[in-house]
């Protein structure tokens, strides 16, 4: 009896301990972080007038279950690294500091577990300031008290969370100006950090320098052209907000994960930033045939463009035969020096990628430059000033359909001679005239290609659309990918009718920029971003243009997976 009781006690104890251990582990697994915080917002953007005051708040929450957290709060200066990361620096370091403009409601406080605190900040903008100013509110966690136990070495970490403050002073004298100060291309051989993208990766890096007095938001595009200027590839250049503080250089980078075939190329970087002109740079480079390629770059050329704007950026006019029409344009000099502007018409066309090409001669059956009168056709414009000019067209009798010309605006700094090697910037305003009458909207699909990308299975469908009418068109549309249905042979009966296809996918064409002029051809592109199973396929293109008009095309292709 006693032995049985003892046994039962031991067994019960064992069971109870097992259950307790299990519960404890579950509780620990479900327990919250002991030290956890949330902060919002991490960025405050303000537009204020000189002399204006405003307030904003920042919320700091202690998400810890049991720990109190003591925070120090202070305002400091803000600079920006080349990587685009903001950096906290001592007040007074930055020439564009707003640290002294900002007062916070609390500088030292304790937040209990599960509690939050709203910190108010008041901004007072002094009079007489222009451009942009910047600061950062720092929330620094005070480390715990040191343990009294003897230890050999101690690393004390001060954790800081930040709220950046960007202030734009509302004044017309804010100067937005940026240039690309360098453009580079490197391969894995030259930068080992690229190895994680594959041995054929290439990194393009354009450094944008903000020469203005206010922050800008850069949006970059990288175009790679062959030596004959044919566009090979166009991709975004860099990503993220794209913010660049004044007097700062930030790198805009893109990584292409598979190399270009060996040969000579030109890289073009264009970064728009709400200035009158984008920052542009070109770099010729060569790719070697080695397995891990070497890049050899030529001379980098940054286009120091003259800052001026023309409005409108496109002229579209409808006029009957024998008529006269006129409209105004405005040229705005955004430089701090006078500029000299010359204006003249040129013949133009768009290539298959939709890029504007100026033709060397003023000939062509759709060119109307000879009908145009520009007044004045040249002038000097003081800094910051605007000039209105008129462009008129006299349409001859008996003409019908579309007529086109490109109005070229060449600007140089006054005192420099146009036509010399000094800096000249050109702006193009396309002129589209539709002469009312028998308008012929006609087009056809002249070619279709199915391109396959190794490794990823991506397929690119290229549909060449040709304008065979007498006026410009803006095509849009889609492709339908269909898979041939296999019909099983039943005994001796074999199906010999038309092949049957079932639809696999419908994909819209990538956005078409601009128009297709009469006689011109445009490549419309649709990408299928996945591998297709083996089989026989057809791709049907439907392109909408004009008034309820459609051009169609069809092509068959096979998918055969290569033997591994």
């Amino acid at each position: 009896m006693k032995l049985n009781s003892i046994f039962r006690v031991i067994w019960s104890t064992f069971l109870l301990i097992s259950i307790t251990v299990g519960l404890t582990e579950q509780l620990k697994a479900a327990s919250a972080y002991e030290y956890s915080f949330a902060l919002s917002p991490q960025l405050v953007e303000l537009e204020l007038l000189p002399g204006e005051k405003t307030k904003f708040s920042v919320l700091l929450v202690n998400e810890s279950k049991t720990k109190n957290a003591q925070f120090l709060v202070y305002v400091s200066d803000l600079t920006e690294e080349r990587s685009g990361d903001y950096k906290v620096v001592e007040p007074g370091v930055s020439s564009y500091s707003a640290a002294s403009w900002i007062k916070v409601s609390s500088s030292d406080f304790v937040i209990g577990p599960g509690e939050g605190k709203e910190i108010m900040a008041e901004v007072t903008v002094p009079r007489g300031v222009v451009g942009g100013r910047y600061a950062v509110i720092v929330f620094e966690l005070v480390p715990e008290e040191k343990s009294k136990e003897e230890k050999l070495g101690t690393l004390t970490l001060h954790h800081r969370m930040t709220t950046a403050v960007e202030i734009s002073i509302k004044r017309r004298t804010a100067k937005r100006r940026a240039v690309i100060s360098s453009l580079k291309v490197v391969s894995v051989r030259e930068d080992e950090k690229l190895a994680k993208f594959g041995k054929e990766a290439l990194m393009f890096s354009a450094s944008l320098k903000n020469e203005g007095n206010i922050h800008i938001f850069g949006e970059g595009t990288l175009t790679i052209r062959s030596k004959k200027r044919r566009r090979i590839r166009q991709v975004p250049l860099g990503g993220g907000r794209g913010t660049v503080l004044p007097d700062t250089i930030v790198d805009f980078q893109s990584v292409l994960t598979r190399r270009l075939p060996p040969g000579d190329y030109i890289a073009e970087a264009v970064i728009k930033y709400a200035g009158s002109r984008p920052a542009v740079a070109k770099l010729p480079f060569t790719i070697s045939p080695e397995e891990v390629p070497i890049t050899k770059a030529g001379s980098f050329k940054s286009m120091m463009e003259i800052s001026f704007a023309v409005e409108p950026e496109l002229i579209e006019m409808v006029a009957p035969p024998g008529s006269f029409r006129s409209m105004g344009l405005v040229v705005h000099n955004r430089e701090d020096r006078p500029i000299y502007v010359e204006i003249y018409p040129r013949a133009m066309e768009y290539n298959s990628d939709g890029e504007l090409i100026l033709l060397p001669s003023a000939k062509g059956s759709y060119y109307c430059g000879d009908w145009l009168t520009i007044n004045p056709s040249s002038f000097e414009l003081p800094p910051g000033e605007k000039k209105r000019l008129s462009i008129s067209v006299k349409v001859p009798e008996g003409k019908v359909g579309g007529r086109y010309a490109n109005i070229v605006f060449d600007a140089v700094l006054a005192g420099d001679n146009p036509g010399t090697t000094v800096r000249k910037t050109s702006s193009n305003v396309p002129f589209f005239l539709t002469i009312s009458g028998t308008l012929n909207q006609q087009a056809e699909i002249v070619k279709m290609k199915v391109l396959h990308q190794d490794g990823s299975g991506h397929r690119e469908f290229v549909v060449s659309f040709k304008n065979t009418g007498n006026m410009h068109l803006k095509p849009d549309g889609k492709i339908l990918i269909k898979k041939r249905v296999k019909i099983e042979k039943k005994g001796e009966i074999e199906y010999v009718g038309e092949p049957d296809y079932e639809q696999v996918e419908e994909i819209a064409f990538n956005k078409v920029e601009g128009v297709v002029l009469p006689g011109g051809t445009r490549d419309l592109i649709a990408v299928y971003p996945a591998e297709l199973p083996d089989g026989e396929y057809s791709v049907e293109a439907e392109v909408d243009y004009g008034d309820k008009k459609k051009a169609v095309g069809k092509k068959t292709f096979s998918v055969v997976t290569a033997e591994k």
Partner: protein
Amino acid sequence: MKKIALGLITLALTVAMSMSVMATMGSLTDEHPAWELIGTQWSLMGTGSVSANARAWSSDEVIKSCNRLNWPISVSVHASVAQWIEFSITGTRYTWLVRKPGIYAANSISAIIASNGDVGVAFSGFGDLASVKGDGTIPVWYAAPVPDVADPGAIKDWIPAAQLTRECEIGDTAELHKGYTWKLWNKIEVVRCNTACEYQNDACITLVLKNQKPWIDPTTGYFKK
């Protein structure tokens, strides 16, 4: 009656024993496994061993799970969508107790960062542990392998503490939304001439707004016919 008494005594004993067990388990401290470099191999010393040549702690319990609370955050009128950030850390002080010279490593500094925007992590003030008496230093190295490793033998790039000034590369936006974990391994070398006193280093980790990141080609290459 005797059976009832026996049952109650049993229950009392069981509860007492289980509480004792829980107390023991609840005193599992914030000690982290430490390794010692012997020759060219790292040897795991584990935790809780009073005879271990070195032991490492952080000032709080090791994080085992993430419990991100959702707070209704008032949005500033100057931003259409406020960028928030959540930051969870293992502690604010990291200590070593070393009994004899050697090279030791531990994986004790970790954090989880979550945000709906791009965040950069800046390191500053990192350096060797300096003697409070001013008569020597203990060299320190750091590493943040991605993905994390199970033991320091797999770490190829140890960075001297003074060179830990680069920004931490946070994963992509989707990862940052869910919560991105980074771990900072640290390694110290204690030599015979290190005097018996305290050594320390004060450093800073700052979370900042990130305005730029590289664009990575999502496709693998170029098309061919």
